[in-house]
């Protein structure tokens, strides 16, 4: 009798473990500068000017199904609800994914910058709003100092007609991420800053972590990961008013 009970308990335990839904925990989270992205059965790849669509429904045997022009200086790709937001140095490009998986261009919104070369301009989206950081690069090829470094918020509730609703100067902004009502923005040379976006088109700065370079940042649940050229830092962000430094690995 005991054996039957033990066996049943163990079976139940194993069954509950395997039926546990780990889908969202194991889903892929990409950074602000991602140029490769999977959405369902499709892989989207952007290079400097083109968007290529691959059908990946057969594991390990993908097929290229489409190539289309996007623009120039294309830099990152972000997905929300069947819409692809593609950031470039001069414009925000929006595509809607059709039923056959191939994106269709919906809009192109120029940033109208004074100069458009040598910038890194990732875009991320939450709900009806897109958050873009526009910045110069002062390393490598770009030695001229450009004075246009901004955080912008666009209303994209109508993807065919994005509207600029907020602009603010930020010191060399880089990657960005959102967790609930907090927007985290990397500052290339000094760390990261945090904005309250309870009012999505009016970010309010409320906190920062400084003292290190920061290139990119991603938030997953209560964990914040910050990438610098030679280091990865992590923070517990379960309470955004009291974020806790967890670790730094530089080896």
């Amino acid at each position, binding site marked *: 009798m005991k054996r039957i009970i033990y066996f049943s308990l163990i079976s139940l335990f194993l069954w509950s473990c395997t039926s546990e839904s780990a889908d969202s925990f194991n889903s892929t989270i990409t950074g602000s500068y991602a140029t490769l992205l999977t959405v369902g059965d499709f892989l989207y790849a952007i290079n400097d000017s083109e968007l290529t669509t691959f059908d990946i429904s057969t594991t390990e045997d993908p097929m290229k199904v489409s190539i289309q022009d996007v623009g120039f200086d294309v830099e990152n790709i972000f997905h929300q609800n069947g819409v692809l937001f593609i950031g470039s140095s001069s414009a925000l490009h929006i595509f809607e994914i059709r039923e056959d998986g191939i994106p269709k261009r919906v809009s192109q919104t120029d940033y109208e910058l004074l100069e458009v070369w040598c910038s890194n301009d990732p875009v991320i989206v939450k709900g009806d709003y897109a958050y873009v950081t526009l910045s110069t690069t002062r390393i490598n090829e770009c030695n001229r100092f450009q004075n246009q470094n901004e955080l912008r918020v666009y209303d994209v509730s109508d993807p065919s007609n994005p509207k600029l609703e907020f602009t603010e100067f930020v010191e060399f902004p880089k990657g960005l991420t959102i967790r609930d009502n907090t927007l985290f923005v990397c500052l290339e040379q000094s760390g990261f800053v945090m904005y309250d976006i309870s009012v999505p088109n009016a970010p309010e700065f409320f906190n920062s972590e400084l003292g290190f370079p920061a290139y*990119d940042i991603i938030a997953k649940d209560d964990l914040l990961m910050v990438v610098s050229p030679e280091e990865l830092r992590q923070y517990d962000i379960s309470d955004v008013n009291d974020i806790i430094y967890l670790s730094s690995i530089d080896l």
Partner: protein
Amino acid sequence: MQFIIIVFVSIILFSSCVERVDIETMGMVPVYASVDDFSFIKSEEPRSFDNLGNIVNVGDYIFIGERNKGIHVLDNSIPSSPVNIAFWSIPGNNEFTIEGNVLYADNSVHLLVIDISDFGDIQYIKHFDNIYNPEESNPVRPPSEYIGPFVCSDSQKGIVVDWNMQLIINPNCEAY
């Protein structure tokens, strides 16, 4: 008048005899492999970070790209103490994403499809030609701790898989 012509001709003859001095020095030289050579794609021992780029998170693992070299794999089950567990060598790599057991990554020219079901033994499966233009990617430089002259990388010659210190003549790049 004749005198002027003689002087003029002499100057021309003389200037062609003046030798330019070549600069010879020790410096870094890139070692190239063909973009179609996938034998370099493999799992290696974990190594120190340099020149980090893209980050991807899947479950308890963090993947961080090292520009033009490959991907660091971290076990982040305990975020207060992440462990560097492997390096995936992919010369020329700058972009990647992961879906299930498949890694999609570039090598500056092609888009590679790599099986990562065993992190310790990744396997190249196939690739798509010419998805990327190597001239658009960042120039490849010697390891960042190196200071001194080097021969600039030339994407026409292939992908850089290593750097060697040797005698170079008239280096066209400097790391500082």
